């Protein structure tokens, strides 16, 4: 454990950082590495171990052939991330039966779900000028849930009136999601596909809102992923992304505490190096013509056992953006 920590720390120092950053963001201008470099050194000082729940949704977005030349640049990290992804796929496939067991391995996700739904609901209602006091405010909106897993996010969205399409790279998850959605006539209208965002773009699908919650930290190339998400959105449509911050505090809580101490997640679910800081996320979304309008953090109160929305983005955070209509 300590060796892994020091290995990662060593990986983050000095020239390794620069190389790493160039690999991750090959399109970034000269200014951004310094900005990002500053970010890397300013680790959060507080390391209070408040249990945090990074959701364990399925990993997504195997890089398509056209992006692989870029991936080859930083060969070492690329191979580790793709092999990790296969491991992750297998891991998720193994526990996919327990998606809807609200006391099983996905319990933290179930507990966090109402909080992120509250954010999604309020931002979408505000943006599309829907009545928040109605029981089905998202009526008439086409939404795609990228990395839907067992459908934990898709089903409430369908109950709120939206026309939902759920996609996931793991076939087993789609099967579980479909079986569970058929249990309620309202959610049985959800369309589940075992595919990736890039394939949907190739099919030319467009949606009013694109949700990618707890996915981008499992993707090999976040910048390309965001471009795919933007391509799926109609002009002036909404994109919501949630992920975990790359801070020391997040390491202490989301990886160390959640995976090793509390065992909320299988070990190796998250790689700290694949986390994104809010600034980086805003930047790569801007490159994809998505303007981030709102951002919030999730905090967990261990006394009440509930999640709350707050301004504290140091561990989990969620961002809402709209696609430029230009």
């Amino acid at each position, binding site marked *: 454990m300590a060796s892994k920590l020091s290995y990662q720390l060593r990986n983050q120092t000095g020239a390794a950082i620069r190389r790493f950053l160039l690999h991750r963001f090959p399109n970034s201008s000269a200014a951004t590495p310094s900005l990002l470099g500053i970010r890397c050194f300013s680790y959060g000082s507080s390391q209070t171990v408040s249990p945090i729940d990074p959701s364990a949704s399925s990993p997504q977005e195997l890089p398509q052939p056209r992006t692989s030349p870029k991936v080859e640049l930083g060969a070492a990290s690329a191979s580790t991330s793709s092999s990790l992804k296969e491991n992750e796929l297998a891991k998720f496939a193994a526990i996919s*039966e327990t*998606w*809807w*067991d*609200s006391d099983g391995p996905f319990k933290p996700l*179930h*507990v966090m779900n*109402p909080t992120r*739904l*509250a954010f999604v*609901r309020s931002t979408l209602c505000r943006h599309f000028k829907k009545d928040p*006091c109605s*029981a089905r405010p998202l009526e008439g909106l086409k939404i795609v849930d990228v990395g839907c897993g067992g459908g934990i996010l898709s*089903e*409430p*969205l*369908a*109950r*709120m009136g939206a026309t939902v399409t759920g996609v996931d790279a793991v*076939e087993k998850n*789609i*099967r*579980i999601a*479909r*079986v*569970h959605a*058929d*249990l*309620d*006539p309202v959610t*049985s209208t959800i*369309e*589940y*596909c*075992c*595919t990736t965002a890039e394939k949907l773009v190739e099919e030319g699908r467009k949606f009013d809102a694109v949700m990618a919650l707890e996915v981008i930290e499992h993707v090999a190339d976040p910048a390309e992923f965001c471009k795919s998400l933007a391509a799926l959105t109609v002009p002036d449509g909404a994109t919501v992304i949630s992920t975990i911050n790359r801070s020391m505090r997040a390491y202490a809580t989301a990886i160390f505490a959640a995976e090793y101490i509390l065992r909320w997640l299988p070990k190796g679910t998250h790689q700290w190096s694949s986390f994104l800081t809010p600034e980086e996320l805003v930047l790569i979304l801007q490159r994809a013509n998505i303007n981030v309008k709102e951002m919030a953090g999730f905090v967990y109160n261990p006394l*009440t056992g509930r999640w709350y929305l707050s301004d504290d983005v140091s561990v989990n955070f969620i961002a809402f953006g709209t696609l430029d209509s230009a």
Partner: protein
Amino acid sequence: MNRMLARRLVTNVSRMNVLMKSFSTQVAEDAGSLNEKLSKEHEKKQTISNNIQQYDVAIVGGGMAGMALACFLASLPMTKQLNVAIIDSNPALGSRLCIKKDDPPDPRVITVTPATISFLRDAGAWQYVEQSRHASFNKMQVWDYTGLGYTRYDARDVNKEVLGCVVENKVLHSALLSRVEATDFQKTIYPLRLTSMTLQPSSTSTVVDKFSSTASSSAQRNLAKLELSDGSSIYAKLVVGADGGKSRVRELAGFKTTEWNYSQNAIICTVEHSIENQCAWQRFLPSGPIALLPIGDKYSNIVWTMSPSESGHRKSMNDDDFVEDVNRALDYGYGPHPKSSLGTGDLFSWLNMDSTFSANQFFEIPPKVVKLASQRMVFRLSLRHVNTYASKRVVLIGDAAHTVHPLAGQGVNLGFGDAFTLSKIIAEGIALGNDIGEVHLLKRYETERKPANIMMMAVLESFQKAYTIDFGPLNVLRAAAFHGANYISPLKRSIISYASGDQKLPLFT
């Protein structure tokens, strides 16, 4: 017979559908054609299973708590489109009972706290109560048989108008029913009893396992199935047990309770005075408290707690002897009157600046009872608390979850609090697209209500125990408690706020 055949046919067809479905999911197919096939099968299943009605919420028990829940659901914007079934065999629910104003008051009355009144006012049901007989009181006097101390409470101590309101059960019940019928809330009343209930497990194991159930479609298989006394069934996403102390829902769902009997019975009846009574009186006697509550029109309601043998004796004695007994219990029997000792100001003079209105009031003798105006009813008293309030698709409210001693008139108010909280939780669940029968949502109701209910029960329990023991030093302690509550203003205000439902904890707020 036909129904059985039809049901068997339905299960056979559903079995075939299920087999087809399991084959199709195992074969790797394109997402599009798979969806198509599933939607076709789904349509087939829907047309077959149309004979069993499906509801969002099934409220078992249309009494105070159950009707209050229906009323609150009808008045909240998020929940008023829900489809609700109320299962209660009480004929009063079906026909509109015409309450004649000239009738003497029913002995079954409840005291509603200001908090409950505000819930009912917000839901729009209180206006119906105001059209019928009800009596608010703004004064209360509590003392015991030793005559060593007394406490007077006044609504003006906490800058309120009333301490509580006494309403007959049937008046409040019909007010709730009128409110529900005045809105376009979809409710269906089943004048039947619940015979059995099946709550399906939530496992997502392959559908092949569900052969043995009698449900007729995979969608309905996930819901709770209620079988009624005439053989019909209904499905519901959420079953609310509001069927009172001997709750059938609680028994069928397998909830365990903690209970013990008080070995006390309560006699209730209506009595008449020659003057108006505008104060609530309670005197603690060696075998239990006697309470006199104003109902209006010179009538009052008596709640007298005593041992079972005494209650048998008192129920069977003739009316005049009973009236004599009551007057003795309230006035001159068992012990002397407390002295109105306003002079103890010298001990608590430093608090006089903040003294409450009622601290300066003399001890008053309750109005004499002139006549008995109704039959005497006897009830066994017990304390019961269920260990969990909720599990998947089923939740308990009101007396089904907890019963308390009537000495502070709090029992039904706890039930109204439960109904209000549950309606709020259901509204929040619907706002965020939850399945309302989901355990996590219902557990939030439990974490909100359980501590409050347990706290109130603990307070009442301690009172009940403290006042049933006749022991010299304990009597003096009780007297000191009376004095303390009467003259220490912050304590008195705290007690009034807590009993009115405005405060969560008895102290420390």
